[in-house]
């Protein structure tokens, strides 16, 4: 599904990704772990198409198509979803209105009519129940005054509504208490299928107790330096990132 080859990227002349390789197939869950400043969020933003970065080398392929020249919204239309670490506020735009607009813009890009209101409502009801979201929450302004947990739950709600092929969850566990973490992880697990893939970016093992990855990658200094199965995450948790750094020397 996603194939990243020798990706190099910098921001303000500062090199961040230095030859990143990654292949993710449909039906798989990958975890990317690594210390602060390793380039985890940069990786997520570049796949989603954020334009602040200078991509000097490498390719990003989604289902065999090079997407590195596509605008962020075009990547979204092709099934890329990013759950933001820090979701932004949009005052006066309700969660419902926002997700309705997002769905209909994606449909428009595929030459489809707007989703009928009845279907939209049904879907909203279904997905909000999945994430234990109160109906009142949906009429609030997007992310305005939301708690950390509400913001993340809202991200996964949008993911559920948009049904992406590739979802990247950027530190979705940060700022979540244990109950919210369970709800969010449960939501992600229910959305998993053999046709989509999930990349979980996290510092900690905690989230991976709930969303069990098929592969764990350690990102360090702009490169994936170690790949293993779920047990690698436990090992990291026990030994700390210094272990990896020492191993590299």
């Amino acid at each position: 599904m996603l194939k990243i080859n020798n990706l190099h990227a910098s921001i303000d002349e500062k090199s961040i990704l230095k030859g990143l390789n990654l292949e993710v197939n449909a039906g798989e869950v990958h975890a990317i772990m690594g210390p602060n400043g390793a380039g985890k969020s940069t990786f997520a933003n570049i796949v989603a198409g954020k334009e602040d970065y200078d991509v000097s080398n490498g390719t990003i392929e989604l289902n065999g198509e090079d997407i590195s020249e596509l605008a962020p919204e075009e990547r979204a239309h092709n099934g890329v979803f990013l759950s933001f670490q820090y979701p932004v506020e949009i005052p006066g735009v309700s969660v419902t209105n926002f997700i309705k607009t997002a769905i209909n813009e994606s449909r428009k890009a595929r030459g489809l009519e707007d989703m009928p209101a009845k279907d939209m409502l049904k879907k909203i009801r279904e997905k909000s129940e999945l994430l234990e979201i109160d109906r009142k929450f949906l009429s609030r302004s997007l992310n305005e005054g939301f708690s950390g947990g509400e913001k993340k739950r809202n991200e996964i709600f949008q993911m559920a509504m948009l049904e992406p092929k590739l979802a990247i969850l950027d530190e979705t566990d940060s700022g979540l208490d244990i109950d919210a973490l369970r709800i969010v992880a449960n939501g992600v697990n229910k959305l998993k299928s053999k046709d989509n893939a999930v990349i979980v970016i996290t510092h900690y093992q905690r989230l991976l107790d709930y969303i069990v990855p098929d592969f764990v990658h350690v990102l360090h200094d702009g490169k994936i330096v170690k790949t293993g199965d779920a047990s690698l995450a436990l090992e990291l948790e026990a030994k700390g990132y210094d272990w990896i750094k020492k191993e590299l020397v």
Partner: protein
Amino acid sequence: MSKYTEEDLEKELKTKEYEYGFYTDIESETFAKGLNEDVVRAISKKKNEPEWMTEWRLEAYRVWKKMTEPDWANVHYPKPNFQDIAYYSAPKKKPKLNSLDEVDPDLLDTFKKLGISIDEQKKLANVAVDIVMDSVSVATTFKKTLGEKGIIFMPISEAIQEHPELVKKYLGTVVPTSDNFYAALNSAVFSDGSFCYIPKGVKCPMELSTYFRINEGGTGQFERTLVVADEGSYVSYLEGCTAPQRDENQLHAAVVELVAMDDAEIKYSTVQNWFPGDENGKGGVFNFVTKRGLCETNAKISWTQVETGSAVTWKYPSCILKGNNSVGEFYSIAVTNHYQQADTGTKMIHLGKNTKSTIISKGISAGKSQNSYRGLVQINSRAENARNFSQCDSLLMGNACGAHTFPYIETKNKSAQIEHEATTSKIGEDQLFYCNQRGIDTEKAIALIVNGFSKEVLNKLPMEFAVEAQKLLEISLEGSVG
């Protein structure tokens, strides 16, 4: 990667042409340019007005002659030469209309381009339209339904003939002829406008609506509107304006007077998109408008405005809260782009006890425009327990525009409670990326963010016009992609 930045958007906005820039070729009868007592008399005679009306106009003209144009507003423009303006223009073929088939096809076409075809409007449930085109009303609908309730809704020129006692009683009582330079000018030369009277205890069953257009090149438009809501009555009134593209600046100096008697309520909504001038600031309408309402005991007046047009706007819809427990509200969205300049706001004059006022102003500036909020909250010494809440928010797009807030507060009573909040924000790159990531392109994202920013005011508009206003905001800011 195709990078779509705010600068690209700005470029796009620059090339956007005024959607309503067409000119209807209808034969018009226009007076020679210039203004003197004879011209004032001629206008009055043309309209077959009674003696008292002619005298009223002449008195206004004499006052005006002694006045000078105000220059305190935060706007800069070449002062119009008032002797170089034609003060009367009427479509020459003035049809007596029994049905729409009799309307000049060119005129109907114009309405269609504006998206306000009367056919459509007639079908639109509960909307009565009195269309003013170059100063003379050419079509009135729904008159019968209103008539059954005793509601009078007609061109003010006809009201002067048919209901002189009402017009004489209220005209100039809220905005006196000597009020200001433009109001005095309007009083002397007003060509037409609307008159509305709601009898005691009557709730007007439909939104009353007027569309104004400036059509003939070089003619000023001086509309006069008078709405009187008698005791315990209710009316919701909407005024919408578009003007075709013109190279020379056109002057628009309207006066709107509202009278809300005891326990009456008037909602007055405006959607204004007069030609704003082109990307270089050439052309566009000068909009110098005086709007004011008087509230008696327990009465309520709400002004809601969506202002996207005009090269220069000078406009302060105000409320005089004369009666005890009366309420004044002002909800405004002002959008400026290119070289547009807007100096707009409100005045809330608290005279009675327990009077309340609310001001919500949303200014959106793009291009090289200047957008100013100017508001006065005045609490008189006898106005015990008066309350005001003001909120002024500005949204900036790009680095070349300006947003200004000039709130004035004068209070002579210690029991007054006044709150003022103001914010200024910019559309953030991170907001745009967030929307893009969810499949929403930048153009649509800006529309979404602007609509969210304006929501509190859009919600105050009658349903069918809220949709229109939302569309107008998008047109004004989006450019013409795709």
